């Protein structure tokens, strides 16, 4: 139930984002979701793509520092209060969230949230028990 997320080390220099996204585009890889964590010196670009292994190879080949992290993808009904419900489920189960970011699917009434948690299997169980759909890699990559 884990999704492979790509993280790329990005130095705070002009043109870095262009270079990274061009490498991904040239490798024929499609980006599903992205987020960037930034500090004054560097950023970490996190990507969900449709072909994670191809993307990693292409980025490493271009000399970039890349790692793969396991995250979970949760489907949340696109209604006010639904996301809060998911958050409550996590806090009641005493599970903390390292970081998260959301994206909207094209042909769905749902929003998708990528969560990085300490124990992905447990988080997936808890959320599924509360009625949230946990998406598989294939579902996300092929969206």
């Amino acid at each position, binding site marked *: 139930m884990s999704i492979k997320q790509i*993280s790329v*080390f990005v130095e705070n220099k002009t043109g870095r984002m262009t270079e990274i996204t061009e490498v991904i585009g040239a490798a024929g890889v499609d980006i599903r979701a992205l987020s960037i*964590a930034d*500090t004054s010196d*560097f950023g970490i670009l996190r990507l969900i793509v449709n072909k994670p292994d191809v993307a990693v190879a292409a980025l490493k080949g271009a*000399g*970039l520092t*890349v790692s793969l992290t396991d995250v979970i993808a949760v489907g949340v009904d696109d209604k006010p209060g639904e996301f809060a419900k998911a958050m409550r489920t996590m806090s009641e189960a005493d599970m903390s969230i390292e970081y998260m970011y959301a994206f909207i699917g094209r042909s769905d009434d749902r929003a998708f949230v990528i969560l*990085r948690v300490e124990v992905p299997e447990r988080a997936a169980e808890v959320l599924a028990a509360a009625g949230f759909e946990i998406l598989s890699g294939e579902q996300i990559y092929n969206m």
Partner: protein
Amino acid sequence: MDNCFTPWVECATRETMERMQTERLADTVRRCYENVPFYRERLDEAGIKPEDIRSLSDLERLPFTYKQDLRDTYPYGLFAVPKDQLVRIQASSGTTGKMTVVGYTQSDIDDWAEDAARAIVAAGGSKSDYIHVSYGYGLFTGGLGLHYGAEKLGATAIPVSSGNTKRQIDIIRDFGSDILCCTPSYAMYIGETMQEMGIDPQSIRLRAGIFGAEPWSGGMRVEIERLLGIKAHDIYGLSEIMGPGVSFDCSEQNGLHVNEDKYIPEIIDPDTGEVLPYGQQGELVFTTITKQALPLLRYRTRDIASLTRDTCSCGRTLIKMSKPCGRTDDMLIIRGINVFPSQIESVLLDLKMVTPNYLLVVDRVDNLDTLEVQVEMTGEMFSDTVRDIERIEKKIRAALLSALGLAAVVKLVEPKSIARSEGKAKRIQDNRKL
């Protein structure tokens, strides 16, 4: 006990060595006095005649020679022999201004080759070895120095010179190089490139390296040995004194044996000129006692080291010098604290979490010196969270503060963004204007 190229000298008794040195020193001072106007003047000024030099303790009475003296007499002003006796000229560019020009008679070339051969044997080499020379060939003494040493030993020299790293690796793998000779930073680069090419260090013949021409830390040695699967040995020299091979590492890898049958070392206080006892760190000074073309008396190298006469397990009785930890002019003074790039290198390597690819950027902001240590991020170091990366930066900062007493800003940069060198690595970017 090591094999020695010339055991009768390298393992000589103190008595034999001192007798040889005394004779040679007296002869050198006489030759300088008679043939080099510069030295005649200096010795007359100091009231010293060649016959006054009767024992090694008289060495201290001689005046120092400085790099500036070579610059002032550029190009051939300090040569002690007529042009016809010169068989070679070499030069080093130095970081400022004019080249330092040195010359050699045939006897000097033979002596130099012997120095380098001793170094190769001390690194475990023999006439059955392929000696891969990646030091630059040309006016720089590195390439030709090791090359002639290899031939003198009867080993097989592969004169690759520097550059074209992929080709270097092809040669190492296909020609079967046994011993690699280059700068330590280039050895690192070759090691990294081999790793990228997916070549297992155990799959190549290479078993030793002789690295010099720039200061390098014990931590760097461990890294190189791991990356290349070899034993890494130090070699020291400067073209003014002869070239690489003035001193060399043995199997103990704990200090370099000085070829004191040819070069008498001293350690002095760089400010007062006072000769310091064994064990104390100071500026390294050499007096050449066999060189004919360019004999130098008490030449101040500006390298910082110490000397010791402790017994060495290799069996050699040649005096040992510590690895030079920097140059008096490499030293940075940041907020009143003396800092050598090699110290920072040691801190980084001891942390075992960073590559030794770093750049020190010194600046002055609001009348206060600032130090930024740029270190390359590695694949192993990279974590998905900002927090983890910041933790690494903090750890480096804390280690530097504790080791140097200096609060530096640490900046993690992309791999390969710090310029690699094939020769001496540029570690300092001092942006402070006078």
